[in-house]
């Protein structure tokens, strides 16, 4: 599916530009896009290095195992095939916690670390395992309690009550997360 999306985005874009007679725009767009990709990757280096270091301490100290034992029933329900008390559960929970508090910067490294641990358990290295799909479902629909970024934008534009959207966001994000988990369950059962 990524193949198709990629192909359609590029071909449809080139076609539209050609029909609109602004093919010149594309030369700029291509290099701007590539630059954005590199900028994001380099931006990730600092937070990845820092959080992966911190997560290693958390793992060695047994914090991740402790957390996963604490929330075992919940995680077992979401990820039925994961081994009990495996540190990966701690990584998944750290990723979810960071998402809930709207800490996008910390959520990404923890999610990547969880993905790397899931890959060690994955029997088919090129194909996403069901656990990986569920982790993605949780992340793409991301339950957020404190949408920090948008609150700060609202503050910038002098909202009378910048945090008034916390309630509506919570309801909307809960709906999308439930929808994602239900569809994920559907595919899981179908592919079994």
């Amino acid at each position: 599916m990524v193949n198709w999306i990629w192909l359609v985005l590029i071909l449809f874009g080139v076609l539209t530009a050609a029909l609109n007679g602004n093919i010149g725009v594309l030369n700029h767009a291509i290099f701007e896009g590539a630059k954005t990709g590199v900028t994001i990757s380099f931006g990730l280096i600092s937070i990845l290095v820092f959080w992966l270091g911190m997560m290693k301490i958390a793992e060695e100290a047994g914090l991740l195992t402790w957390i996963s034992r604490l929330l075992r029933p919940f995680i077992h329900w979401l990820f039925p095939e994961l081994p009990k008390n495996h540190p990966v559960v701690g990584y998944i929970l750290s990723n979810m916690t960071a998402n809930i508090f709207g800490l996008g910067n910390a959520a990404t490294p923890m999610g990547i670390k969880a993905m790397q641990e899931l890959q060690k358990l994955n029997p088919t290295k090129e194909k996403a395992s069901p656990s990986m799909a569920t982790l993605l479902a949780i992340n793409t629909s991301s339950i957020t309690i404190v949408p920090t970024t948008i609150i700060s934008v609202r503050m910038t534009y002098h909202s009378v009550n910048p945090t008034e959207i916390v309630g509506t966001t919570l309801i909307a994000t809960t709906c999308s997360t439930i929808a994602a988990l239900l569809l994920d369950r559907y595919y899981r059962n179908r592919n079994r």
Partner: protein
Amino acid sequence: MQSVITSISMWIIPGIISLIMVFAIWNRVRVYETFVEGAKDGFSTAIQIMPHLVGMMVAITIFQESGALQFIINLIKPIFDWLHFPTEVFPLAIMKPLSGTGSLAIATDLIARYGPDSYIGRLASTMQGSADTTLFIVTVYFGAVGIKKVGYSIKVGLFADLIGIIASLIVVSLYF
């Protein structure tokens, strides 16, 4: 409420770090050596993600700058007018799954133009906070471990985005 949220988001990261440190002391972990040991994977992980991000960002930028995004928006617009979906937030709904920075730019623009406390301002705020950038997350997370067959993840993500947008529309209309 606002000050509580601000102080929570200020305390959460230092709090997590302190918790990790207390656990580490308790279990006699050599903290600095362990930190460096884990941290050295950070650079290679970021580098591994780069080709995936460059590829995806080029495609998204082409799609956006060429006018293709605007074309799709114009095409679907009548349907949304008919459903009484405020057309001003429609570009945000389309951009949301494609690009995080792009959709934040649109949301900020809507808030600046219509005011944060207007119907459109509140709707844009709720929509922006209610879903994450599907394409970015799939690219980064699967790119980091070299997964080639992503399965149904994109469908699940896009479906969640759609539900998030519809839910935002309903909730904001009812609540405010």
